[in-house]
């Protein structure tokens, strides 16, 4: 037996499910994907992290509305959902740039100069690790280890792995890819 989602409107005040928010759940098809994930776990609390993964994948980040929706559907306290969403590094509550570059700072990459690679990219794009460029084109993140240590130092651009990156060439390699994507568009 699986539980069904709570009837809307149980919580009052700013948590109330208003007409507009119901509209958003219906009109934005991406909520169907999250819904499917939560259904797979019988709308039970242990599906929370999987639901957050789906939401993050669908929207690129987790906004308050989506977190509240997940809390309500899984019958969880909002504070718990927020606590979980902020505990894990892979979840982000802020919208990301159009493209993402991740610099691996794992040990193998670190001793092969990953810090210099990061600094070079930060310099070139005037963005700190964890931030997004002012034109919202590039988010720069760091990771603990992709497990591609043989290619150290490693960065990824939109999921594509780029290995043996030299600090001097890193920014250029990203620029090439950014240009390629823009041209394709």
């Amino acid at each position, binding site marked *: 037996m699986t539980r069904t989602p709570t009837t809307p409107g149980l919580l009052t*005040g700013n948590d109330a499910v208003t007409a507009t928010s119901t509209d958003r759940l219906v009109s934005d098809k991406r909520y169907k994907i999250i819904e499917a994930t939560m259904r797979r776990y019988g709308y039970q609390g242990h599906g929370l992290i999987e639901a957050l993964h789906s939401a993050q994948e669908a929207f690129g980040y987790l906004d308050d509305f989506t*977190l509240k929706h997940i809390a309500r559907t899984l019958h969880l*306290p*909002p*504070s*718990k959902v*927020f606590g979980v969403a*902020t*505990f894990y590094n892979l979840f982000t509550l802020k919208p990301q740039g159009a493209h993402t570059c991740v610099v691996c700072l794992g040990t193998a990459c670190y001793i092969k100069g990953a810090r210099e690679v990061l600094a070079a990219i930060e310099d070139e794009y005037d963005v700190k690790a964890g931030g997004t460029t002012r034109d919202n084109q590039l988010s720069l993140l760091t990771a603990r280890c992709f497990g591609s240590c043989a290619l150290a130092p490693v960065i990824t651009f939109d999921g594509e792995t780029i290995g043996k990156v030299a600090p001097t060439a890193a920014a250029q390699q990203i620029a090439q890819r950014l240009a390629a994507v823009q041209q394709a568009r």
Partner: protein
Amino acid sequence: MPRTLTINGQEISARNDQTILEAARDAHIHIPVLCHLDGLTDVGACRMCLVEVAGSNKLLPACTTRVQEGMEVRTDTQRLRAYRRQIIELLFAERNHVCAVCVANGHCELQNLGIEVGMDHVRYDYIFPKLGVDLSHERFGMDHNRCILCTRCVRACDQLEGAHTIDVMGRGAKSLIIRDMNVPWGESTTCTSCGKCVMACPTGALFKQGSTVAEMVHDAEKLAFLKAARERKVWNV
């Protein structure tokens, strides 16, 4: 079935479902605690109640470790005393604890432990994080500068009030006590304003609005009373 064990060389007997902490208290042996609060489940987080147990190469938290037959427990060795002082110093360095201007001055478990462990100064760097004070609730306030993340408020809200308004966000040194989705306390839609979190707080982090220096006396015993009354229908007045 009763268990016989020794604590600091003193032979005592305890029930088999008792923790070392409970057995020690029954025998009037003091073990310092901080994240433990009667009436709430234990999490073993503050490490103040760590004790030495013969035959174990690890120090064990008295609050979560059950007694065993023949256990030889030491609660007050030089090594434990040194560790406890270091832990308390770490807490004082971590956030902005200024006893002189604190509502809980004179009624603070952290301050008392500082005295107990003999802390005359803090050897570590003060971190001086920039943290906020939430005064949005009409009756209560929260000063994150004085929070030690013991989660007693989280547990009181979840286990005794049942609202689970409070939880922890982030992790590591960036952990923060939150209400709902990190909203100002006054805007929480789940908070019942029952005040149990304030009773549970060991420091001046949670307080009644209007309290000034040294005026905030927490009422932590109420929570054990409440638990006994609710769950066992026993009113220990």
